């Protein structure tokens, strides 16, 4: 029902002129500041549609969106911010790239940057195998300890990180081989058992002295070339020290027998060419600082 607006006696406010079943609605408009703010928002939205990426549309079998006249995207924004960060770091990264590792260690400021950067690079590239705390796992060395297959000096670590281990595409990669003594019929299975006992006895874990005694001869004939007469290994060849308490694959007898029988040959990628030289240096310094660096 439509009616002429009248003044309501009780409130003194005009009605809207509408009446439903005897009920008339008072005309109390929204506050002006609210209305104008609302209009301003509408105007803002219209401008926004043109200026910023806004509307999705389907065209030619795929979804697109309007790009906006200033070409803003959040992806660009992040890219620009990353560029700014890299530019901010450029100077110190240049210093790290130019300075020998031994000198960086003595420079507190560069070390602070290098260790922080190394930690981040380690998390990005190394943690999948070596663990986020560099604690390693079976077959992947723990980098915190003082036992090194290929050497724990700064330059040894740098070589390992740059060229990798058994990484076929890198000519300078570290290369060696633990033979498959049983599989390739170099040893018989009782000889494998004996030499396993002997290896365990080097670190005081043997349970069968007689077998260990027999194994000594087998060891002298087959293993000393790499592991040395005293079983202490050879870092030049990447042969592990068998007399210490650290086992890459496990120090129980079954695992040792498995290692001797089937051989071992873990692989580490060569990071040279994949990471910037300064990043590799940061990684080396970080790994070296974990507690085992020599």
């Amino acid at each position, binding site marked *: 029902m439509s009616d002429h607006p009248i003044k309501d006696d009780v409130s003194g406010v005009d009605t809207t002129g509408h009446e439903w079943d005897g009920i008339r609605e008072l005309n109390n408009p929204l506050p002006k500041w609210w209305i104008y703010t609302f209009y301003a928002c509408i105007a803002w939205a219209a401008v926004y549609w043109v200026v910023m990426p806004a509307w999705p549309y389907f065209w030619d079998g795929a979804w697109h969106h309007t790009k906006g006249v200033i070409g803003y995207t959040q992806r660009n924004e992040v890219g620009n911010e990353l560029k700014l960060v890299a530019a901010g770091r450029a100077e110190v990264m240049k210093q790290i790239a130019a300075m020998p590792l031994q000198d960086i*260690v003595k420079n507190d400021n560069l070390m602070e940057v290098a260790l922080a950067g190394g930690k981040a690079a380690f998390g990005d590239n190394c943690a999948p195998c070596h*663990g*986020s*705390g*560099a*604690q390693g796992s079976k077959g992947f060395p*723990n980098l*915190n*300890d*003082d*036992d090194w297959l290929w050497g724990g000096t700064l330059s040894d670590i740098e070589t390992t990180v740059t060229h990798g281990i058994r990484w076929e595409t890198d000519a300078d990669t570290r290369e060696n081989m633990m033979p498959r003594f049983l599989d390739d019929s170099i040893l018989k299975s009782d000889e494998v058992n004996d030499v396993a006992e002997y290896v365990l006895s080097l670190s005081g874990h043997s349970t069968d002295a007689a077998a260990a005694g027999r194994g000594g001869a087998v060891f002298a004939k087959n293993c000393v070339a790499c592991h040395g007469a005293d079983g202490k290994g050879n870092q030049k060849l990447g042969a592990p*020290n068998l007399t*210490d*308490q*650290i086992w890459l694959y496990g120090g129980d007898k079954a695992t040792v027998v498995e290692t001797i029988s089937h051989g071992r040959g873990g692989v580490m990628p060569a990071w040279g060419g994949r990471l910037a030289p300064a990043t590799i240096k940061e990684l080396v310094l970080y790994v070296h*600082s*974990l*507690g085992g*660096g020599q």
Partner: protein
Amino acid sequence: MTNAAKRLEALAAEAANAASAGSVLHEDAEPAKAIDWQSHSPLYESRVKVYPKLVHGNYRRAKWLLMLVTLSIYYGTPWLRWNRGVGLPDQAVLLDFPNRRFYFFFIEIWPQEFYYITGLLILAALGLFLVTSVAGRAWCGYACPQTVWTDLFIHVERFFEGDRSARMRLDKGPWTLSKVLRKAAKHVSWLVIGMLTGGAWVFYFADAPTLASQFAHFDAPFMAYLFVGIFTLTTYSFGGIAREQVCIYMCPWPRIQGAMFDESTFLVSYKEDRGELRGPHKKGTSWEGRGDCIDCAQCVAACPMGIDIRNGMQMECIQCALCIDACDEIMDRVERPRGLIGYDTNDNQERRRRGEAERFNLIRPRTVVYSIVLLLVSGLMLVALINRPTTQLGVLRDRNPLYVVLSDGSIRNGYTVKIINRDNVARVFQVAVEGIDGAHLLTPTDASGAVDAEVGADTLKDFRFFVSVPRANLSALANGEAALRFVVTEKGKTDSTVGETTFRGPTQ
């Protein structure tokens, strides 16, 4: 319309008649009418503008003095200097967010000592409770920034537009050039005061002389301009535009205060027993059979909240006591004793009505309890402040890896030791471990672990340490865990600070 409001209007009409009869007491064209806040029941109500009239008297003088003192403290404090030593700020009161320090004269607060601020807030709250239980909303009436700045802004308004009646005339009148100029001058002055207020505020957060010179050269940090802008606008709108509405609608305190009053609290009150029956009085006529209140409504005209104190205690009343001065002025002129409106207690109102003698009861359970708690908290804070250590130690054990087995079978744990040096000079510390036999301290670069850990003046520094326990001593690790203590001693001193931690190895 409520009865009270009707009565008020009737009284006002009477007063108006009296005024037209030639009473010298009514300087205004029409008598002041109180805003009856309670009976304004609609959901939305336009503000009824309040035109407080200038009064003279002891309370007004006290308030001028308090305004001078509080504004001086506010504007002056950032300029006080305090020597703390080389490399540290020399501003007596400084909230240094970038360096995460609060300086307050000889006190320096680190973020982890924020409980001192909590303590201060507790003290402020308790102080407010105590004052309120003794003398009502004395804080609101005399010292609250809202009151002080509003008072200042009203004074500025009065300077440009005249007193109450002149202001009312001006607002009703047409927009003449004079009106435009007066209003413009007033608003500009308000904005300038607001800007100075914001300008002083930012000085608490940066070195005041440096920032002032930056402002002078227009190269201050953006944040400084932003906050000056915010404070300019808030001061202008709170002190100039919103005024009493801040107290009535925005501030929670008026709603809480009711719990702090009791019948012995001193409140600005109209002494009904003396004032009623009120009514206009002609000079020379008898005061017999009537009250002292001549219904001149000067108390209403003076009230910055626009209320009538004669309606009794009201939530809107900020206890500013200006109505006391207004009434005393009138009482002097009608040659009646002062104090028809004055500080009074509900208890005494009742006692006078019953014909008993007045009594003043300051020592009541609530004042005693508030005082005791106030003293306790102050004492606690003082003791904590005096015994505040200058060296503090935080030991974080590496969790990843939990422990490392070394080639000789010993177990090594890694720790980050944070040493806090709160002294104003750099200090060198020596670190040792104890608690496990054979435990050996080393650093990533030094196998002996005997490093001099130097911590700069007033800073915190992280140090990496390793602790290794030989295979022979691993039996000390019950369930793979043993308590370990880091002992940090300043070089050449004997006092040491101990940080508790644990050492972990494989569970057997």
